[in-house]
């Protein structure tokens, strides 16, 4: 097991906890609205942005946020008009972002910066700074307020967008808010989970929760709980095994999902009310 100073352990635990919370909260909307392909592209755009940030010697988080926002701005209206199939979007943008990321990584000056770049790729507990924690904590607070205040609107949009629009909900606004919050959650969690794997933290905990409940409120509560548990268990797995933290978190969340599929009461023929 890796020995770490207790302050660093605390920062890392808090970082994992907050990354798990924010990503899996947004996961509820991403999964339900079938935005997986868009979110997937956004996570890779954030990764390319972080590499770009390192290349021009600014905070990679700024680059990640800028690229994630840009992707949301391009992909949001594109998918709105349904002119592009989701697999076309993935094929085009995913490869473009990875290509850009590799080009940017190639031009990062200095050895130390290259190590930083690798941490963004795989995720690292050593990368979590006090500022990251503050930003993640602030985002968590904003998301809690967002979900509580707009719960009725969100539920309505999640059920059926056109019906929500027909009853007077500004569905476009909520659609774009979901995209932007997803972009921010991905960008802020990038250093912990890593650019290649952060999206799993959005999809896996929510997909796990979906196997157990029919009540949207329960999904909204338990998805972040599973996300937080996945991150904490993944964090300790990483400490004990020396695996990269991102990979550990994803393995744990994937195991939770596999277990949920196996025991899901929703998939049994004779079910009890949930």
């Amino acid at each position, binding site marked *: 097991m890796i020995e770490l100073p207790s302050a660093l352990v605390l920062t890392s635990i808090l970082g994992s906890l907050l990354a798990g919370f924010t990503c899996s909260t947004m996961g509820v909307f991403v999964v*339900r609205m079938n935005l997986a392909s868009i979110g997937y592209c956004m996570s890779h755009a954030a990764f390319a942005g972080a590499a770009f940030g390192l290349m021009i010697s600014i905070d990679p988080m700024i680059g990640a946020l800028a690229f994630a926002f840009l992707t949301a701005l391009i992909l949001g209206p594109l998918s709105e*008009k349904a*002119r592009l199939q989701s697999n076309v979007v993935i094929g085009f943008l995913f490869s473009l972002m990875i290509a850009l990321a590799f080009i940017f990584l190639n031009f990062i000056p200095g050895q130390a910066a290259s190590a930083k770049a690798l941490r963004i790729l795989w995720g690292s507990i050593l990368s979590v700074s006090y500022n990251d924690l503050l930003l993640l904590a602030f985002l968590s607070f904003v998301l809690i307020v967002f979900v509580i*205040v*707009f719960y*009725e*609107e969100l*539920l*309505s949009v*999640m*059920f*059926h967008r*056109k*019906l*929500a*629009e*027909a*009853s*007077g*909900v*500004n569905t476009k606004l909520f659609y774009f808010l979901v995209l932007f919050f997803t972009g921010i959650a991905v960008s802020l969690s990038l250093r912990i989970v890593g650019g290649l794997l952060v999206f799993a933290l959005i999809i896996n905990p929510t997909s796990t929760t*979906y196997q157990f*409940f*029919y*009540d*949207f*409120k*329960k*999904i909204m509560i338990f998805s972040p709980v599973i996300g937080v548990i996945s991150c904490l268990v993944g964090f300790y797995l990483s400490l004990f095994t020396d695996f990269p933290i991102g990979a550990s978190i994803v393995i744990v969340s994937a195991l939770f999902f596999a277990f949920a599929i196996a025991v899901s009461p*929703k*998939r049994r023929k004779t079910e009890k*009310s*949930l």
Partner: protein
Amino acid sequence: MNKKTIELQNIETIYEGEKIPAIHDINLTVEPREFISIIGPNGAGKTTLLETINGILEYTKGRGFVFGKEIKKNKLELRKEIGYVIQNFELDPLAPFLCKDIVMSGRTGKIGVFRFATKKDWDKVWFSMGLVGMIDFANRPVGKLSGGEFQKILLARALAQQPRLLLLDEPFSNLDYASRLQIETLLNRLHEKYNLTIVMVSHDLSFVPSRCNRIVVLDKGKIIMDDEKSRILKSDIINDIFKNNGGKK
């Protein structure tokens, strides 16, 4: 002054990126408390017409009014007064929604932003679920309902909104005979008891509710007939239109 519920003047709606209008030269007036059926074959523009009335689709020509207010300028406000029952759609059986929450979601626009549902809102939900006979299904997952039950929940959702105008898109589609009869009885009862203005779209002439006394026939995006139900059903043109699509039974 008795305002018309719907007044459409030379309306044309073109989908974004398209050149040919989905509906054109639409002139339609609906009086308060009328129950009308808009019929036509698939692709005639029926759903487009409904969604132009509630402002989901923006008309490209002409002028449209609902309750005397121009649709384009007041669509968000108007939608709160218009109940819309969308064509029965396939829902994931594992979808995480309970029936009571879906019915409550009909009131979202009316409740408004930065406000929470109150006991009064929930009373409206229970009342409308009671009206459609689905009160016992309140805590059931919506994905587990049969086609007819789901249609009733969608109807309860629209009614929970306490609309002045009810737009129904193919309310009998994908339903078995018994469910169709139930929905038909329900619509007649709602119209009789609550004086709602109802505009219903259908491609099937075999289910026109008895309280519906006016039929508008739409073909290729244009209104070709607008008359009393009895006269329309006797018309030969109907046979020609429905020859390859639906059919008079």
